[in-house]
């Protein structure tokens, strides 16, 4: 049975359709593997065994009655713990929300359920999305399944590890500054951050409202496109969601002939390790061989991305996390003598250090007398980054870079210095600021650890990204 767990989502879909096994058997297989192996990895915070099996049985019943809902019917999926699933605890890996059970499904989860998918459980993450290693969860550490002495990446470390460890063929994550792409790269999986507004944010616990995107982590490009297609679309409950057409998994095999692929030199600086550079450049050479035009370009404003990102995201987070006050839900301090003490104690006890750090930074950046100097300035920097991308997409159809300057680091290696940790986001943050889609896929290894290649495209150009990713995936598959 464990061999089938390495199958892709689409292979499972074909097998279910052919009656090779039932959805219930499939769910049980994954649940059993999770039960056996997750203590070593720590990918899941909650496993929803009963409801998963119920959903699987319902799927089998539909199929038997000839009413199958499509490709995702009966397919097990894991969901990051900052995305609300009705009836299952959603903690955002924080003590602040320990035991909180949302009374509603996020739009993305709703769509998955409507498509017949089976939600296996909620995955671990850095608390409230703030982190790049999954070491900032209040509850557990998620280890990299490829080398358990290393981090899985963050903040969607649990989702990436779950897919890499074959606990689920696919998982939902969230990406604000790289939180789907970087862990996907660290764990050797495919991770897509779609265009901002593609997937409704309704039900995603907000970290930075203008940057947050729900994304998909999978083992194959085709799987990724299938799931993204199912969860995309306009949602009346999210005023920032887009009504653009979402058909990504058509014509994945169009190839890259004639595509102009730019390599922003600012993302290939000395900060990037040699091993990563080498793997990424090999992939660039493959693209050239396949008929794409590959060349270096310069995007000077990218250097502003990281500080702008940390200012804006922290500012928005300081406001978004203010609702966690111990009054209506979540953790409330036991001892307090008045409302202010209730607030102070609950939040001091409920939040981890990194969350507190960012709330304080964000509050400061918005405060009277400092708003213009920090927040307003950061917004201007963001605008310059956006314009730089616009210019770049005048000369290129796609941009290519490493996903992360290095491979998965050892546990504890960076937790001493927050700014060191923040620096691992330099390649992913620009696409977040520009709101454009960006995808990470495996392109090689460095010292045994997977290296991720990042592809970025114009807003709403996910089809082009998938098509280019598919071409590389197929070529590398042939080479292996």
């Amino acid at each position, binding site marked *: 049975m464990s061999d089938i767990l390495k199958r892709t989502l689409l292979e499972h879909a074909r097998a279910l359709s052919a009656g090779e096994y039932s959805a219930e058997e499939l769910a049980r297989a994954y649940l059993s593997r999770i039960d056996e192996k997750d203590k070593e990895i720590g990918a899941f915070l909650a496993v929803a065994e009963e409801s998963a099996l119920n959903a699987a049985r319902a799927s089998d019943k539909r199929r038997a009655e000839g009413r199958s809902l499509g490709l995702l019917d009966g397919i097990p999926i894991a969901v990051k713990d*900052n*995305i*609300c699933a009705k009836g299952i605890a*959603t903690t*955002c890996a924080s003590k602040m*929300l320990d035991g*909180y059970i*949302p*009374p*509603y499904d*996020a739009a993305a989860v709703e769509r998955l359920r409507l498509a017949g998918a089976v939600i296996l459980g909620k995955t671990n993450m850095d608390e409230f999305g703030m982190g790049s290693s999954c070491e900032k969860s209040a509850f557990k550490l998620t280890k990299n399944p490829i080398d358990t002495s290393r981090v899985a990446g963050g903040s969607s470390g649990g989702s990436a590890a779950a897919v890499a460890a074959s606990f689920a063929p696919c998982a939902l994550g969230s990406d604000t500054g790289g939180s789907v792409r970087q862990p996907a790269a660290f764990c050797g999986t495919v991770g897509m951050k779609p265009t901002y507004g593609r997937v409704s*944010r*309704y*039900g*995603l*616990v*907000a970290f930075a*409202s*203008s940057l947050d995107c729900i994304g998909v982590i999978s083992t194959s490009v085709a799987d990724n496109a299938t799931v993204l297609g199912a969860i995309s679309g306009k949602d*009346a*409950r*999210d*005023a*920032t969601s887009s009504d653009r057409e979402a058909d990504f998994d058509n014509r994945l095999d169009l190839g890259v002939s004639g595509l102009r692929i730019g390599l922003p030199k600012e993302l290939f600086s000395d900060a990037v390790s040699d091993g990563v550079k080498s793997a990424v450049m090999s992939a660039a050479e493959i693209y050239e061989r396949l008929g794409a035009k590959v060349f270096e370009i310069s995007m000077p404003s990218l250097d502003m991305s990281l500080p702008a990102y940390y200012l804006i995201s922290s*500012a*928005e987070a*300081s*406001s978004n996390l*203010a*609702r*966690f*006050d111990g*009054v*209506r*839900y979540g953790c409330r301090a036991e001892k307090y003598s008045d*409302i202010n003490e209730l*607030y102070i104690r609950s939040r001091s006890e409920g939040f981890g250090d990194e969350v507190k750090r960012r709330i304080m930074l964000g*509050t400061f950046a*918005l*405060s*009277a007398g400092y*708003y213009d100097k920090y*927040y307003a300035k950061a917004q201007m920097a963001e605008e310059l980054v956006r314009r730089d991308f616009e210019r770049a997409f005048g000369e290129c159809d796609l941009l290519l870079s490493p996903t992360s300057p290095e491979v998965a680091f050892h546990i504890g290696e960076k937790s001493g210095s927050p700014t060191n940790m923040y620096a691992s986001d330099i390649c992913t943050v620009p696409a977040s600021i520009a709101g454009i889609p960006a995808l990470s896929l495996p392109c090689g290894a460095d010292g045994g650890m997977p290296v991720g290649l990042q592809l970025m495209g114009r807003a709403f150009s996910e089809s082009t990204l998938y098509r280019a990713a598919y071409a590389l995936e197929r070529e590398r598959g042939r080479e292996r």
Partner: protein
Amino acid sequence: MTKKYEMTVGLEVHVELKTDTKIFCSCPTGYGAEPNTQCCPVCMGLPGALPTLNRRAVEYAIRAGIAANCSIAEYTRLDRKNYFYPDLPKAYQISQYDSPLCFDGHIDICVGGEKKRIGITRIHIEEDAGKLIHDRERGTLIDCNRCGVPLIEIVSEPDIRSAEEAKAYLKKLRSLMIYAGVSDCRMNEGALRCDVNISVKERDSERFGERCEIKNLNSFNFAAKAIEYEFRRQCELAERGETIKRETRRFEASDGKTYSMRSKESAEDYRYFPEPDIPPFSVLPDEIERIARELPRLPDQRAEQYSREYALGAYDCDIITSDMAMADYFEAAAKRTAYPKILANIMISEILGRVTQESFECPISPENLAELADMAGEGVINSSTVKKLIKRLWESDGSAREIVEREGLAQIRDRELLRELVLGVIMDNEKLVVDYKKGRTVAAKAVVGKTMSATGGRADPKILCELAEEILKSQ
């Protein structure tokens, strides 16, 4: 002492819009439901919930802006106002900071017969917070029903110079909101709340004094009393040479005084920033035009019309247009009478005192009141008969002419008959003649009064007066 000083008052009024649903979600807005039965993840600020803008609320706010003679912003956005309080679920209020929907308007008020223009700095949209209920046993309870109810905040220029002006402004503002159809302004339901900003300065001084804010006044009388008390308090401090601290105060209805709410040296920092969950939006000129067209005729327009068509005076116009239902009633009746000025008088002196402050409901039909006005204008009945008839018709509506005919209530204008009656009264009261000759004109009034009684109140008072004077002189 207070004559040396002058007050500078600005008012911030919050009005609840009477949309069916809340401003950022589709929960109902109705008042009085069981606690926490009209909320959802959005207005409760549950993790992951997002606001979406109710365009009807924007439309109502624009109506209010047009009614207050404001310019409407073509392009506007929402901002977050961040602070912690138990009745604020998200710990921020979605409001508008530096691009209000409406701005640069004015409201004209009438105080002591004088017209005055009060500037409106801005009108913006925002969401209401919940309600805190203090229960002795269970502590402080939070009701989220009111969270997210749409509000407009109307900020006046500091043009108000007396408690009377403040009251007139509030009344006019309330009336405009009702006319514009954006709110019922039910004060007892908290649909209209007022904050007062007041400072004092010596009359000829250029420099404004330090101001204090008095929050959450939910009655016009309280607002006036609070202003009067606060003015005296600040004058006294100024007179003693003491500094007036900039602070927020509350009004205590039981003793009519204001008390400091908290001693804060600096204003609270709300860390305003643009609301990222709701994209900025535009209001097209076409839309503004349509909204303006669909507004009913507003008080000032109607007043101008009454003065033009019916030659009504400013004071009468002001009173009649102060309530839309009353104005509508007046218009319906005025069409049917040749004596609209008399109609207005009757409404103001006889009808107004009988209706409640909250709603103008008159059981006498406009047609019947018009008929009554006609008879008064024609001289068929005198003013005391008018009073009698109003009382009768209030109880059971009907045709005044029929009643007058049936009961013979018509005014007696027959000079000959009245002359006889006056003579009769004078004969019976010779002392009155003596008094009159002595120069006591009150004697003439007594003759009129007695004769009037003799006719059961039906004599034409003007004729009586003339006859009394004439006959007394000739004695």
